[in-house]
């Protein structure tokens, strides 16, 4: 299944989080502030006239089960407020939040506590571990609040600790752990209650860069087996591109664009987004799929060496991939091998196939393909798990794709911005 199919698959699912017209106003006269916003006044005017701050303005988005949804923006853009509305740590002023078919802005205290205990948990920027409790008791906190018996609590917390690689640290106090380890405890505490949804508020921003990358990899790793729905807040574009299945960009309390990392980078919706992504290294965003060419021409085993040579000559290439009818890749036939076969009068090319070429899967980032391309004598085959040939990559096609995506992206960006203003 390729990425677009996956995405289509996803949209067929019911969203697990559905946010509609969500607005949060801090300070006096929220009703009058709402009126002003409805009349088209902006955030600055509301602040000037009423002294009220618009935290989030008419945010709308859906998050699908198993997805990492990144909300990105600079500080003050309202991303943390938006996140905290999802479990009502901050009460929204207006709008609807549906979690798994339940409208949560109307829940009473008891139902809200139940939601927080069982369905949504949270990881915090500054870890927010309880300093007076051991690592184990921190992890067990959610279960303790639910009234789970001590022995079960202990067993499940130990499991969660093992999951984040902290087995053996359960009796330490948080203060005795490094920042990275503390956030692992934070993650274990959030996972321990086995929630459907994880809210991560700049969870890795307080860590130094090396540890941050390590934690990102670990999160992706955990996610591949857990399939939680994760809403992840960050101000770091590279983090967003790395972790996000989809990214929502926020500016001044509004969501200005939602899309996959490639969409955001390639087609920024306006100047703000374009400015954000200008410095992005395209080789980290684009994958083999984005830069591969159609695998044409190819030949099948029943084609003889003469057909192969003719195909190569007409396309100006020095080797050709051999596939079965269903496009399963068999090997590579070089011009020399084909020539030798014709000289010796052989009909069957199977014996002459070379297997000395690079294979990559379509999701490998271009960053990792570049060194391979640089040293490759033959084209690189892009294959799926069943070894079907999806495309080929040659040096020229990578550079072409990088140039095209970059140029096109910025061009569209400024045009769109002009349109909006």
């Amino acid at each position, binding site marked *: 299944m390729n990425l677009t199919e996956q995405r289509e698959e996803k949209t067929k699912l019911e969203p697990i989080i559905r946010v509609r017209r969500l607005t949060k106003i801090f300070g006096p006269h929220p009703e009058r502030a709402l009126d002003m916003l409805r009349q088209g006044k902006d955030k600055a005017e509301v602040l000037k006239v009423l002294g009220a701050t618009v935290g989030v303005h008419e945010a709308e988005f859906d998050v699908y089960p198993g997805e990492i949804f990144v909300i990105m923006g600079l500080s003050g853009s309202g991303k943390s407020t938006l996140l905290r509305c999802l*479990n009502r*740590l901050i009460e929204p002023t207006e709008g609807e939040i549906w979690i798994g078919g339940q409208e949560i802005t109307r829940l009473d205290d008891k139902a*809200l*506590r*139940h*939601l*927080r*205990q*069982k369905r949504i*948990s*949270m990881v*915090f920027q*500054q870890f*927010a*571990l*309880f*300093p*007076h409790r051991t690592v184990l008791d921190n992890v067990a*906190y*959610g279960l*303790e*609040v*639910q009234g789970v018996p001590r022995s079960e609590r202990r067993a499940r917390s130990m499991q969660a600790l093992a999951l984040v690689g902290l087995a053996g640290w359960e009796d330490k*106090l*948080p*203060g*005795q752990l490094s920042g990275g380890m503390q956030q692992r405890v934070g993650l274990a*505490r959030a996972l321990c*209650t086995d929630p459907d949804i994880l*809210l991560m508020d700049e969870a890795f921003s307080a860590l130094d860069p090396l540890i941050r990358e390590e934690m990102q990899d670990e999160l992706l790793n955990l996610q591949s087996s857990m399939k939680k729905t994760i809403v992840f807040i960050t101000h770091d574009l590279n983090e967003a591109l790395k972790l996000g299945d989809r990214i929502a960009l926020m500016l001044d309390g509004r969501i200005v664009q939602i899309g996959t990392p490639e969409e955001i980078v390639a087609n920024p919706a306006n100047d703000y987004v374009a400015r954000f992504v200008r410095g992005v290294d395209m080789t980290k965003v684009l994958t083999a799929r984005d830069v591969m060419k159609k695998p044409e021409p190819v030949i099948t085993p029943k084609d003889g060496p003469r057909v192969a040579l003719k195909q190569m000559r007409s396309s100006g290439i020095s080797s050709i991939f051999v596939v079965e009818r269903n496009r399963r890749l068999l090997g590579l036939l070089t011009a020399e091998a084909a020539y030798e076969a014709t000289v010796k009068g052989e009909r069957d090319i199977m014996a002459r196939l070379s297997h000395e070429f690079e294979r990559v899967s379509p999701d490998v980032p271009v960053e990792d393909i570049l060194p391979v391309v640089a040293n490759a004598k033959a084209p690189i085959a892009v294959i799926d798990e069943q070894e079907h040939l999806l495309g080929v990559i040659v040096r020229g096609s990578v550079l072409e794709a990088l140039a095209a995506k970059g140029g096109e992206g910025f061009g569209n960006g400024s045009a769109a911005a002009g349109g909006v203003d």
Partner: protein
Amino acid sequence: METVRLPLAAWIDALVGWLESTFGPLFDGISSAVVFLIQGLNNIFQLFPWWLLLLLVVALCWYLAGWKLAVGSAAGLLLIANLGFWSAFLLTLSLVLISSLLCFIIGIPIGIWSGKNERVHAVVFPILDFMQTLPSFVYLLPAMAFFGIGLMPAAFATIVFAMPPVIRLTDLGIRQVPAQLVEAARAFGSSPMQMLFKVQLPLAMPTMMAGMNQTIMLSLSMVVIASLIGAGGLGDGVTRALSRLETGMGFEYGIAVVILAMILDRITQRLGDRFQIQDKGR
């Protein structure tokens, strides 16, 4: 210009009189309960031979604070016994302990409430300022009006005088709990009670212990003053020495009070440290 002098004294007398006549039976009930507690504790102390009680206190000091305090308290208590102040010492101790205990029982919930609620805070703190700046002798007057002479008015004046620190520092301790920890506790679905007992109180404890220590010290100082309205105990000796101008005797009793103060102070500080240790991991 001629001004009308406000009859403030008459108003306060009227208020106290009204309280006394309206709540008289209630005051009597409280009075007998408190006196029962103080007398009871004192009687229990009196059951022990003096040397056994002394050994118990010394052992407690040793356990909490090591040999230095143990030796110091042993010397101090021996001096008190030698001077013949043992039973006065026990009565003062009982009065201090029961008054402080009542201060905690009343003050800690008020402190928690005020720590969690801005409006309560806005009402409580000016009252505390008033309570702490009013000269301590003034408390003796309403105490006598409500309860006459004896242990109860002494306890009443002591409680009112000694309560502010425990309220203040409980309030402060609750407020000092980092907002992100309170938020984390909420995010995991804690009820207000779970929040209080699992997060806020444990983290506020070191600060609260400092408040309790201050309350104990204040109640000791008030117990001496309250001997003027019949508290008895070590303070009695001081007042007698004062009225007869017997400097030496005054100092004997004064030193006994200091010894008691030091032992109580060190013990409660050490208890406070125990809560602190858990927090040191940060």
